[in-house]
């Protein structure tokens, strides 16, 4: 699928380019509210990834890939879980159990908890984003 699904359809290409940032923004929103409202890293990752899939459909695979290179995806795939795990370790370092957010570490426990949970969500989001896109590319005939 080296060509776009819709050929050189200008409308589709333009709309896709326009919509993509908003989708990504929404994704970030979902991500950042994950620890207090429905949402979270996984959903956010999928939402953001969908923007790239949309671009791939509209603009064609090569161009989409050009925007989201393998050299970026690979570190993202790995670093997400790393963030997750390291935060867990951080909790241990701070004197709690693994992933025990509610600990006093520079800030009051509630604040620490919020920060850490967000960080974990970010990690998850990054990974999911990268992985979904990678899978899509792979299935699309990479």
């Amino acid at each position, binding site marked *: 699928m080296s060509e776009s699904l819709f050929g050189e359809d200008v409308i589709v290409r333009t709309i896709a380019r326009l919509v993509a940032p908003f989708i990504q923004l929404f994704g970030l929103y979902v991500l950042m509210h994950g620890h207090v409202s429905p949402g979270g890293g996984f959903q956010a990752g999928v939402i953001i990834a969908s923007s790239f899939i949309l671009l791939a459909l509209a603009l064609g695979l090569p161009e989409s890939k050009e925007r989201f290179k393998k050299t970026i995806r690979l570190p993202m795939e*790995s670093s997400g879980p790393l963030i997750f*795990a390291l935060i867990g370790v951080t909790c241990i370092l701070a004197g709690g159990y693994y992933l025990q957010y509610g600990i006093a570490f520079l800030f009051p426990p509630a604040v620490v908890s919020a920060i850490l949970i967000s960080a974990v969500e970010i990690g998850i989001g990054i990974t999911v984003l990268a992985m979904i896109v990678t899978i899509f590319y792979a299935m699309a005939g990479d």
Partner: protein
Amino acid sequence: MTWASHLPIIVVLIPLLTAYITPMLGWMDKRICNPLVIVSTSFAFIASLLLARSVLTRGVISYHMGGFAPPFGIALVVDYFGAYMCIVISFLTLMAAIYSREYIAKELHESKTAPYYTLLMLMTGGMMGASVTGDLFNMFVFFEILSISSYALVAITGKKVAILASYKYLLLGAIGTSFTLVGIAYLYILTGTLNMADLSVRLASLYGVGRSSWTLLVALAFFMVGYSIKAALFPLHTWLPDAHSMAPSSISAVLSGILIKVGALALIRVLFNIFQPEFVVETIPVTSMISWMAAVAIIVGSLFAISQVDLKRMLAYSSVAHIGFIILGVGLATGYGTTGGILHIFNHAMAKGCLFLCAGAIIYKTGLRNIDDLAGLGNKMPFTMAAFTIAALSMIGIPPTAGFISKFYLGLGALETGTWSGWVFIGAILLGSLLTAIFYMRVINNIYFKEPLHREDVQRDETPLGMLIPILILAGGCVIFGIFPRIPLSLAEPAAKLLLGI
């Protein structure tokens, strides 16, 4: 809280963290993957040993993830058995990792180096996690991790047969996973908890109570089938010979050496940790049923192995037989028997790991897979073949190798039951041992005492040192732990006693 108290999570984290770091570093420089993996597995191994020590001194360790006390939070519960499994897993993985350095360079395309190590570490993390977890669903997750990474590893060479094997493995594996998931769902419906300790308490009140006892039995059945597939217990072993023989040899060693044992671990956990020993042994004689299946597995697996011409396929079928030994020991549900089964996990891991690594070395050096073509290798690769012989003797159960000790315990266990079926089981054990001898001695005879087809081939051409070292360590282990069996037994015995509640 000291460092030591975090060991349960550390043993899981180390391989998993490595799994994430590897691709990034590998992306920069492929040569760095192997040392990284070796170092981290060594750490995991050391951590496992420390874990075992603290379990031995402090008893069962319960670790509350995120600080949430069970049954609400996820707990890691490390008993003797879990610690024991961690040691086995990390030890064998370490050997495989050392071995991989030279082996992978030839066997796999360069681009696959980083994924290979990543998957290996993921699989190890999964296995470690499954061993230490105290939560049923958590276990399911770890099982998914290890299964999926093993599917990929089987297929990693990219050969068509390997992909087919992997596909077969994937299909059956997926079925197994689904079954266990359904089982978990049933239990959750019944009790509203997934923590193993909590489950066992709550289930105890449900035994024989109306409809819920039926639900319970159905759940048990689902678990049995699901984990039997993972453990490749006959007749659900059909994926194993293909997958284990088609994977790269270092992976075969891990798959045959420990991965199926994790399936056995899950079975044990379900039987003895979730359901009570009294229930599975007496009320519903599940253990005796799986014992019979295991007995059949021993015989049939061995018979299949005899008929193989491909070395690795033969080793794979041998694994089918030996998982039978392990499950038989578990199913006997007697002190000696279960100890023997658990001990055999370790002994078989060493021996079979060694054998697969040797098979890999043979393929590496000569490209031969057919048993009849191996003539003259005794002179060509003396150390490798000596190790092969020792490991094979351990598989047969010849003293003073480690295999003999497990055979001894299993035999005692079978007789300890004091029933006629015990006599049948011991017959199966002994016959299985004899059949094992038949196919291993065929290989040994070919290696040492058969006229090679091409004299000029028989030049001294030993396996490279990097591959030889793990082979020799494993072979040495087969002898050393045969002479000093107290070492593994110091964990295996209390493990069995704790599981059986005696």
